[in-house]
């Protein structure tokens, strides 16, 4: 009897081992999977991004792409002696939830760095919390310029947090780049602006407005909508009275898409243009129509040679959700942290005191990623300033122009 129970216990343990191995094998594709020395334990890469709510389409892409980078690092034994895992925290695109997520991650001594956030407004509450614990944060998606260079980013830039980096271009480039396209290239001279009042939308629209005016366009109306609004008939009638020939929207697709649809069905047939916040397939399925425009950071992922490997690897993993607008950036952000971690540890042991070394390593990191060369300037901004204008044609986003903002 006793022997029997030992035997069944052994079977249970065996089954658990197999199940556990399957669990990890699922995320490892290479033949060398599991062959690395992981005797020193497990380190986490935190991810803070919306996993639920209106913006989850973007946030899930961020999570999966970070996961992909971590899996590849585990296969290649990039960080000697350690196994890496992703610790994802949902911020629901909400600054208060973001602060909770950051506090949770920063209480874990094994969290080496954080990929995130998606929203600039969430970054504002996350930055100081991670900074206190010297945890490096690399954002794939925050485009508000104040996050790196402070309030007076244009006149007297000053590094806001030495723990904060980002791999995407910022709104003081994105807004004007959009203005150049819309005013100079598409010839729109009477532009209405609507924003959602959040950090990202306001900043983007302000930068757009400056450059559009400089290019000779008139801003005929400026309005705001609420983050939870669904019926935009009122605001549409207001801007319609000013008879604009284009609408610039500072905000994200959950509001932009119905706004575009309602605007067109109310007889105001003008293109809506927005930033990277509306550049997602969800924008089209929720009502964004042909002719609408968006700028986004970087070159189109599916056209870049450097991104090919990423796109293929992502497809091979069979994630349920698309990599989205920030997938390639998240992959690069995670790789910047992992690569710098390998440099900082140099085969040594991790402890919280190594965080300062890791920060230094990220600051001098230089690699070639899916979105091009990954390097940071003295403020933590990416040196890659490429932007792309996309247009909806035939019910799909298509790249219209790629370049750098040159004034």
């Amino acid at each position: 009897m006793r022997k029997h129970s030992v035997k069944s216990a052994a079977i249970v343990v065996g089954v658990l081992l197999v199940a556990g191995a399957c669990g990890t094998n699922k995320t490892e594709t290479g033949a060398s999977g599991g062959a690395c020395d992981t005797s020193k334990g497990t380190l986490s890469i935190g991810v803070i991004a919306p996993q639920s709510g209106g913006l989850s389409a973007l946030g899930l892409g961020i999570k999966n792409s970070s996961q992909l980078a971590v899996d590849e690092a585990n296969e290649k034994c990039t960080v000697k002696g350690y196994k890496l895992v992703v610790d994802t925290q949902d911020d629901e695109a909400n600054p208060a939830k973001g602060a909770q997520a950051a506090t949770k991650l920063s209480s874990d001594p094994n969290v080496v760095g954080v990929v995130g956030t998606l929203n600039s407004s969430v970054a504002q509450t996350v930055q100081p919390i991670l900074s206190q614990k010297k945890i490096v944060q690399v954002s794939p998606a925050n485009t508000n310029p104040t996050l790196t260079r402070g309030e007076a980013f244009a006149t007297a830039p000053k590094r806001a947090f030495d723990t904060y980096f980002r791999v995407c271009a910022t709104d003081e480039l994105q807004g004007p780049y959009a203005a150049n396209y819309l005013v100079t290239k598409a010839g729109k001279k009477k532009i209405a602006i609507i924003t959602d009042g959040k950090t990202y939308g306001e900043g983007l629209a302000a930068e757009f407005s400056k450059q559009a005016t400089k290019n000779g366009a008139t801003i005929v109306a400026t309005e705001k909508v609420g983050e939870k609004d669904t019926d935009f008939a009122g605001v549409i009638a207001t801007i319609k009275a000013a008879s604009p020939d284009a609408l610039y929207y500072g905000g994200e697709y959950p509001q932009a898409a119905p706004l575009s649809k309602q605007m067109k069905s109310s007889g105001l047939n003008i293109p809506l243009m927005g930033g990277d916040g509306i550049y997602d397939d969800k924008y089209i399925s929720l009502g964004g129509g042909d002719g609408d425009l968006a700028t986004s950071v970087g070159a189109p992922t599916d056209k870049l040679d450097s991104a090919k490997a990423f796109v293929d690897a992502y497809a091979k993993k069979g994630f349920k959700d698309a990599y989205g607008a920030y997938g390639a950036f998240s992959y690069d952000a995670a790789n910047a942290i992992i690569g710098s971690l390998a440099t900082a540890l140099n085969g040594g042991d991790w402890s919280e005191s190594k965080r300062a070394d890791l920060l230094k390593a990220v600051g001098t990191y230089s690699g070639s990623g899916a979105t091009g060369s990954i390097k940071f300037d003295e403020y933590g901004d990416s040196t890659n300033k490429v932007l792309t204008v996309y247009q909806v044609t035939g019910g799909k986003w298509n790249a219209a122009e790629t370049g750098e903002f040159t004034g």
Partner: protein
Amino acid sequence: MSTLLQQLANGVVQGALIALIALGYTMVYGIIQLINFAHGEVFMVGAYGGLATYTWIVPESVKDVWYVSLPIVLVGGVAVSVAIALLMERFAYRPLRNAPRLAPLITALGVSVFLQEFVRNFYPNATAALPFPGVFVQGQLVIGPIRVGWSGILLIGVSVLLSIALQTYINRSRMGRAMRATAQDPDTAKLMGVNPDRVIVLTFVLGAALAGVAGVLFGTYLNNINTDMGFQTGIFAFTAAVLGGVGSIRGAVVGAFIIGLVKTLAGQYMPGGTQYDYVWIFVVLILVLVFRPQGLFGEPERVRA
């Protein structure tokens, strides 16, 4: 001038939607003095019920024939709303019937959060907004400078018709009389042979049916639904009920149209534009409550359904 007329039209459409939901708030309050904060979620659930019906029940061949698919979708939405309201009444509110009034109020908030999260987690892809089919005549009604979508016209028509029908039902029918009796004095009504449980269940059912209709028509009008929509619209509906005098059917409808109009007109003409339109709604509410604390149609001519 044309902008003013357009904004008035927009305001009436918004008011019609709010009215359908406000009726549920006011009826339940009239009967059991409960502000059912989960009522906005009943509206949201109705929209998802309608979408589910359209996706899985309406046969592919008639999906584009609105006069076939719209009634089916409406029935589906109303059925889901009513089912949820019945469960809510039976398991959340009835056990607290004799508890202090704060207990069911807090429970209502809990039910509201529960329903939102439940739909978000278990309806396929409901973590983000979902497109809703336009199951009605597409296009716009154009009268001079005014353009209103046909689905907006439908919303106004249905809202007015159902409000009148409800008012008539409560004033004329036997069950309506039982409802008014229970509202006035539940104990005496019981002595007269009125079954209070039946009256309360009926009240929840009527309110939920209206909210279910509102949910489906909202989706048809805006072609987009999300799990937050009940909260936002519910706040307006609750405000409309208070403005009109909680417990009064006529008050809820009038309050709803006032709120719809104030929102669009303030967005157009008041300083701050659309950024401050909510502010003006609540300014109006405060002004009304200062001079008429019982609301526009509250006591003494209270209908108290």
